[in-house]
């Protein structure tokens, strides 16, 4: 009370500082800024990425001058200064300092070469939205935009738009459903039986038993599967559809290539939401197509999660053992201080350095040695002596090791001396005390270390490019073929996928929304992984609550 009256006349900066209010404001500002930055990032990613799956309307655009007609969906609108266009050599009708430029997705890459085109609004007549416009998503060549004319079976027209547009559309959809089933049969056969038998055969041959009875039996099975596959392919080839493009060109294309088709101008909100759901699910569950610019990212999700899990499994025991040694076993002195400093400095080494180390030590060193010892018959083609998911996990485990060590050591240091002494006083040895009391009590701290490690590892891309990540992995590292988990395989990763789609893609406009969507997905997955680890830690904390209280 007295000090207040003494200070009362001295209002102003020093008074404010003494009361600490500016500090509170600064703290609040810093916190709000951080929250806004994170929210801004998420909103940007969501806005740019999630719009991609919505079925946009198709419109017919006609150029005023040439009369050329394009059936396209509008992707973006830009304001361009007139000077810029003039400088670029355009002759522009109309007036005004700013002109509107549209980015149209016209698809039909197999016919036109590019599926995106920029047009000035001035050069266009007013667009119309034809109800019968069809958007066909294909396995190859991107989307097809046009008008469905007929459905063919063995070159015979079975439904024609001239008779009934609705009936043709219906027929098209039922045939499409059938074609999709055939396609999935083909895939199952190729991925499952054919692969398994050919791998088993390969193994037999490598062991020099190519002529054994079981090999002959396998070959028979392989032949039969192959015949089934051929039958499926010819069944798929029987069905085709005829489509008319906006410029009047007519194409007859195989139905087996169609992923799905819609008439966006006839869809109501429910249809559109339904379609949105299907597309989003495809993004999460399907494999990528068309140099990763179409389809889903499931293999990348799988690869990311599997790699992080493997990394955690490797790094936790190593980190905990190292921390226990440093804190419990080793005599505290100059040497442990040096070790600790070294560990802390490891955390500051750029990740690409770990990548190079991983490539040199793990892949070529250890992997090469494993190949020489166990996979001699497969040489010179390497089995483990090439980048793969195991080496990637090991490299990231090394990268995150310091985090786990430091966190665990802090946890060990927080355990009250009284508890250790209590155990020792009951006749437990130091090892028994460590195992039965100290380590369980330090487990929340270990989990904290793992959480930090997961957060760091899941977002890391640079070292992975050297030790196992690829643009497109033909198969997942986990499948039904013994030994089920293929640690030597290369894998896909969301972080690298973002880089690849965003910066290595031949079709930049098509890839752009996928970059945002994938980035959002990566953030969500890291958040989920962290959430799982945090939940686990909180469970442990509840059990060993004394640490937080005392």
């Amino acid at each position: 009370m007295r000090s207040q009256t003494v200070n009362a006349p001295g209002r102003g900066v020093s008074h404010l500082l003494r009361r600490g209010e500016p500090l509170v404001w600064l703290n609040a500002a810093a916190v709000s800024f951080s929250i806004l930055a994170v929210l801004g990032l998420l909103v940007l990613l969501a806005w740019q990425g999630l719009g991609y799956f919505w079925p946009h309307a198709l419109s017919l655009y006609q150029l005023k001058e040439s009369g050329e007609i394009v059936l396209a969906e509008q992707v973006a609108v830009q304001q361009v200064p007139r000077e810029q266009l003039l400088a670029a050599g355009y002759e522009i009708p109309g007036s005004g300092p700013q002109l509107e430029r549209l980015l149209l997705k016209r698809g039909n890459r197999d016919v036109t070469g590019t599926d995106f085109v920029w047009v000035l609004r001035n050069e266009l007549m007013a667009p119309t939205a034809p109800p019968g416009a069809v958007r066909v998503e294909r396995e190859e060549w991107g989307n097809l935009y046009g008008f469905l004319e007929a459905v063919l079976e063995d070159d015979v027209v079975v439904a024609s738009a001239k008779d009934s547009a609705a009936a043709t559309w219906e027929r098209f959809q039922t045939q499409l459903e059938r074609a999709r089933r055939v396609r999935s049969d083909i895939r199952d056969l190729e991925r499952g039986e054919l692969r398994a038998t050919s791998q088993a055969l390969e193994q037999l041959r490598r062991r020099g038993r190519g002529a054994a009875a079981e090999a002959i039996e396998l070959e028979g099975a392989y032949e039969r599967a192959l015949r089934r596959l051929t039958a499926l392919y010819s069944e798929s080839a029987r069905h085709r559809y005829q489509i008319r493009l906006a410029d009047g060109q007519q194409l007859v294309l195989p139905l087996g290539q169609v992923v799905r088709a819609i008439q966006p101008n006839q869809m109501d909100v429910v249809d559109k939401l339904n379609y949105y759901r299907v597309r989003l699910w495809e993004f999460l569950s399907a494999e990528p197509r068309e140099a990763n610019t179409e389809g889903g990212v499931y293999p990348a999700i799988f690869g990311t999660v599997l790699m992080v899990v493997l990394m955690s499994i490797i790094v936790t025991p190593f980190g905990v053992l190292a921390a226990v040694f440093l804190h419990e076993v080793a005599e505290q002195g100059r040497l442990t201080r040096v070790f600790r400093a070294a560990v802390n400095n490891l955390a500051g080494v750029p990740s690409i350095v770990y990548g190079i180390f991983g490539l040199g030590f793990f892949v070529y060193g250890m992997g090469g040695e494993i190949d020489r010892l166990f996979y001699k018959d497969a040489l010179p083609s390497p089995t483990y002596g090439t980048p793969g998911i195991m080496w990637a996990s090991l490299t990231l485990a090394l990268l995150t090791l310091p985090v786990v060590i430091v966190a665990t050591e802090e946890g060990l240091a927080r355990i009250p001396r009284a508890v250790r002494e209590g155990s020792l006083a009951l006749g437990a040895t130091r090892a028994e005390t460590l195992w039965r009391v100290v380590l369980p009590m330090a487990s929340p701290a270990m989990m904290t270390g793992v959480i930090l490690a997961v957060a760091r590892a899941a977002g890391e891309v640079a070292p992975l490019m050297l030790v196992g990540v690829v643009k497109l992995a033909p198969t997942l590292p986990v499948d039904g073929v013994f030994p089920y988990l293929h640690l030597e395989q290369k894998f896909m990763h969301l972080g690298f996928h973002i880089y690849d789609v965003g910066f290595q893609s031949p079709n930049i406009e098509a890839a752009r929304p996928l970059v945002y969507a994938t980035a959002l997905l990566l953030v969500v997955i890291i958040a989920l992984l962290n959430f799982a680890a945090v939940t686990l830690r909180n469970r442990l904390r509840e059990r060993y609550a004394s640490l937080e209280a005392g």
Partner: protein
Amino acid sequence: MSTYGIDLEALQRRPIDSVEAEDVAISVEDLSLSYGGTAALRDINLNVPRRRVTAFIGPSGCGKTSLLRSFNRMNDLVNGCRLNGRVLLEGRDIYAPEVDVSQLRRRVGMVFQKPNPFPMSVYENVAYGLRIQGMNKRRKLDEIVERSLRSAALWDEIKDRLQENALGLSGGQQQRLVIARTIAVEPEVVLLDEPASSLDPISTLKIEELIYELKSSYTIVIVTHNMQQAARVSDMTAFMNLGRLVEYDSTDRLFTNPRQQQTEDYITGRYG
């Protein structure tokens, strides 16, 4: 030392007449202890009688806890701790090289100042020492856990909460649980290091009653700051100051008719 040539120190140190040779559980001979060069105990000689309560009193830093901790070699854990002299448990030197420290600590249990239950269930806390010894038979464990909790006067309060986390108990219950944990391994000696200093008066009373109960089966050594407590629970009392044993006598005599001026000053509150 004195003009009359009488060795006063030898007089102070003389073993107490009430303790006969065959009744000695722990015998301390010329014990000196230092931490990193700083002396904590100097030339202690003392006999702890079997199945009695012996209290160590004295001002803070007088070495009473150090002395207690040298009975089960807890000082081994402290870096830079040096010890001279002998501590005999049932006539055997516990600092002899062939002694297994874990075995020793099973025979000499210890309860600390602050309750330190493990973050496990009540049951597992009591069973801990037994499990360490490799006992895993459920029925035997159940039996010993119940008996130990009954001995620690805790059974009736928490018999329905055996599977709950021990950290959820009150401070007094936790301390009695720690005592139950200690006696579950059936030690010969129980060392109590200010067992009631962090407890409320009622819990303190319960602990004191418990000590009274336990002394029929265990040799008990208690360190306490509280002279009333020492007077209430102990049969023998040792007053220590500045690392030396000043006076050791039966509790009655020490509190009513101390031989040393220092002791009198301390117990009457004029000192310390």
